[in-house]
């Protein structure tokens, strides 16, 4: 195997040394404005079969150990926080519905969301305030962060497990919309609900 070219080596060294994932733009800026897309693709391919891999998460790149090495590397003291069930559900709702207001989260879960739940997710760096919805009351809306994508190994939100099926089944639509559609259908197939 030949020596990779110096730009590839520079991108490799930069991402190995970086303390946080970097966008292609940030890498390029660090390297004096070079176009690094080709180098990133070459590196990702080179590392695909190795014990360490180059991955893109939410437009940011980082090296991480290969998933099949997990059993060897799990540490005694996990540095991943254990989420409560409520926090996990809220996280999923934010991820699959973003941007989403607290009221919308609560209408899906059927319970009030404890004050601390969203805070925990924001403290973990996975959820952020994404502005306000321009409706009466201007509620705050929430969305996920690039750190969320990095932590759960998602290149983009399109990689959320099953999101296409959920959307196709209308399960990401509000109940009211689904109700309207279902009532029309139920007109013909009466009595199924009982």
């Amino acid at each position, binding site marked *: 195997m030949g020596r990779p070219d110096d730009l590839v080596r520079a991108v490799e060294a930069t991402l190995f040394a970086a303390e946080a994932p970097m966008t292609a733009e940030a890498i390029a800026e660090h390297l004096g404005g070079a176009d690094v897309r080709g180098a990133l693709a070459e590196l990702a391919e080179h590392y695909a079969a190795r014990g360490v891999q180059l991955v893109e998460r939410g437009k940011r790149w980082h090296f*991480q*150990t290969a*998933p099949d090495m997990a059993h060897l590397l799990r540490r005694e003291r*996990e540095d991943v926080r254990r*989420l409560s069930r409520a926090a*996990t559900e809220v996280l999923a709702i934010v991820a*699959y519905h973003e941007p989403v207001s607290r009221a919308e989260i609560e209408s899906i879960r059927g319970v009030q969301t404890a004050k601390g739940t969203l805070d925990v997710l924001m403290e973990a760096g996975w959820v952020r305030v994404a502005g306000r919805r321009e409706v009466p009351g201007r509620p705050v809306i929430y969305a996920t962060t690039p750190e969320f994508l990095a932590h759960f190994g998602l290149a983009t939100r399109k990689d959320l497990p099953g999101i296409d099926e959920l959307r196709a*089944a209308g399960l990401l639509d509000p109940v009211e919309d689904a*109700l309207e559609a279902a009532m029309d259908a139920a007109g013909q197939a009466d009595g199924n609900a*009982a």
Partner: protein
Amino acid sequence: MTGELAIPSAALQGDEADWAGPAAAATDDSALYLELDGWEGPLDLLLDLARRQKVDLRRISILDLVDQYLVYIERAEALRLELAADYLVMAAWLAYLKSAMLLPREEQEDPSPEELALRLQLRLQRLAAMRDAAARLLGRDRLGRDVFARGAPEGLRVDRKHLWQCDMFALLQAYGQVKARTAPVVHMVRDRMVMTLDSALTRVSAMLGVSLDWMELRDFLPPHADPRLRRSALASSFVAALELARTGKADLRQEETFGPLHLRGVRA
């Protein structure tokens, strides 16, 4: 029925380790209490009961579900367990829904019980979908648990440095200005040729005494004088003419605005 009650809701999820939900419990009544404590509200309990019907949520029997829920609540009340108000509200609503669904069609109100049942079903589907999604999300290869970033990255440091610029001209100009600003300042007024008002007055009165006719003001000016002296002489002779007219020693005449100014001596 009792046997089914013990199915912990967490067991329905893929990744049990991540749930802080109710633990697997025995089938006695204390387990029921623990589970009620673990459910997050009536919708959560309903979803758990619905899943025990082991059919697709779209084909769930709402009537069966209502019965199971009401049985559950009755048992809890029989055991004198404290139930949160929203469980009781849900129980009352479901009892109403059940009676409406059993009523003959023509006596039904709006919204119809079918619509209410469908709404409940849709809500349960949505909650179930998100619960499954959460489980699948937690089951992914997670950074810091299954995959790891570099343990000891060197870190990238960018030190900002100012590159100051200044050239020789700016340096000398600055010094010149410091010197100019702080040097003792001497004001020099250049010597200029002027005709004072006094000398113009003397000159114009003397000339008026010689002539009897109107004379133009210009004729009083010294001929062949330096242009700057002539300007000064014109100004002072004009003022002198005004002064002589004021004291009654001369008459002034001007045919038109900005036209030549004429003056003539007044014989006493």
